[in-house]
């Protein structure tokens, strides 16, 4: 459904200098419809950039992105806007994802108001329904972001992303800033919603455990390049690239791996 074709993104500083930073180098990737693809790597490896390029929030310097056959990179600004409701994004830091001056209700209603122009009551109903979908009480509608906890804000962001019933969602480290139990809540919510709506998900994280439990396939990135792509179970039992092995070993070492046998990674 989504196809990245030799995507490159280079940042150059200043108008005349030659200093260049290659954020993404020749990334080629395919995501099937209904699949969750995990994108894992350390901070600065370019995964967030790639995620944003997926919905053309950032312009790639080279290459193409195909969304359900449509070449996003070739679309005009106007045509691109029309495709946007089908692909949404959930960001990492819950503190900045919501406009601090808009109530929760207004934030969620915004995409509906812009694209569908329904009446007041329909909008209200839609917003309430979305709040319930993400497990929040409808009385939060008139609250401001600063009154909510991190987990609640992230759910509101999710509700907003779902408002237009998209087919594809990029989740850019959605739970990295959240506490353990809140993370569990948001992740299981995401998993349920994905199943129900048959969403295609690009799940970006630096946490291997989270990726392992959420993704069907995993792509490992380092310094702008995709090092390997495998089915999740295969990646963890027989990783190909030495960097992947390093990451997995580190993950096993530092996590409280209770109840699970550690000899799966001892073998290599």
């Amino acid at each position, binding site marked *: 459904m989504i196809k990245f074709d030799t995507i490159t993104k280079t940042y150059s500083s200043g108008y005349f200098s030659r200093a260049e930073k290659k954020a993404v180098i020749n990334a080629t990737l395919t995501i099937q419809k209904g699949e969750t693809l995990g994108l894992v790597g*350390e*901070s600065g490896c370019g995964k967030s950039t790639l995620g944003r390029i997926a919905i053309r929030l950032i312009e790639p310097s080279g290459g193409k992105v195909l969304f359900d056959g449509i070449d996003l990179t070739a679309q005009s600004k106007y045509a691109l806007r029309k495709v946007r409701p089908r692909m949404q994004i959930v960001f990492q830091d819950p503190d900045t994802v919501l406009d601090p001056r808009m109530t929760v209700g207004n934030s969620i209603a915004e995409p509906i108001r812009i694209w569908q122009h329904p009446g007041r009551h329909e909008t209200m109903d839609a917003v309430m329904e979305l709040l319930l979908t993400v497990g929040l009480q409808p009385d939060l509608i008139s609250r401001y972001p600063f009154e909510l*906890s*991190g*987990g609640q804000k992230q759910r509101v962001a999710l509700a907003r992303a779902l408002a237009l019933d998209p087919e594809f969602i990029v989740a850019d480290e959605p739970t990295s800033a959240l*506490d*353990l*139990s*809140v*993370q*569990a*809540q948001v*992740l*299981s919510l995401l998993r349920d919603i994905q199943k129900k709506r048959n969403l295609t998900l690009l799940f970006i994280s*630096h*946490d*291997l*455990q*989270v990726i*392992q*439990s*959420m993704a069907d396939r995993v792509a490992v990135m380092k310094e702008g390049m995709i090092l390997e792509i495998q089915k999740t179970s295969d990646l963890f039992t027989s990783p190909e690239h030495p960097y992947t092995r*390093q*990451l997995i070993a*580190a*993950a096993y*070492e*530092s*996590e*409280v*791996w*209770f*109840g*699970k046998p550690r000899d799966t990674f001892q073998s290599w």
Partner: protein
Amino acid sequence: MGVLEISGLSVRFMIQSGIIYAVDSVDFSMKPGESCALVGESGCGKSVLGMSVMRLLPSNAVVTGLVRFQNSDLTGLDEHDMQQIRGKEIAMIPQNSAMALNPVMKIGRQVTESLILHRGVSRKAAATTAIHLISRMGISDPDHAMGRYPHEFSGGMQERILIALSLACNPTLIIADEPTAGLDILIRNQTIELLKEQSRGKTLLLITHDLGCAHNLCSRIAVMYAGEIVESGPTSDVLSLPKHPYTLGLLASLPSAGFHPIPGMSPSPAGFPAGCRFCARCQSATDLCHTQHPPLRIMGGSRQVRCLLYD
């Protein structure tokens, strides 16, 4: 004689709209050379507890109870005496390394400052010690590093500098507040290794929400929820055979365990319900749990649990 003895410590914050009960009657002690982890989620009071030992709480904090450090009562000391202890006897590695370092001061100066202040050594001697410390932290080219500013270093490096800062005066007690927060997995492991090495022989109080970090660094663990300690004991025992439902829930919400969420949300610290503070979210709650507040019971094997199930 314990290094740290806390009994009946309560910390309340007076704010415009009422009172926040951050820490509620906590008893806690540490023996020399022991490493103990204080784990819990945001708002459980663990950071406040750490700060209250250092007496670095904001002015709207009301602290009651006793904090004894090596036989002296810290709560009774005046600010001048407390300053002699901070940095020298008790060192804190603060949260958020990016903001904990002075952005306009070169790191060399920040490390030597502590030495000059507490040990009264000359600037030159302090510089030598500082270079030695920084290289022990695994920072390459320590001479040049001394002359650089914090923002020129990565997050992991900044954390190491903070650790160097805290160890500068060879303190008895180290309080590490979330040393691995926000770090990538490879850097995180390195930081944990470093901390393990450097805290050998010293008493370490680790405040974290990262269970893996607690598991790797500390022999004892205390789980906090809503301002109270709900469970404590040897780390491997508590994490492999948890007794308190909250601890069970935390372990079950780990991604590796299938991220089963604990339903509901932490209670607001502005006013706790009667009875057990966790019962609203507890799978095994009984009617009694809603009315009776469980005390911290001592079980065998130096374990403690605060739950009516074990009464």
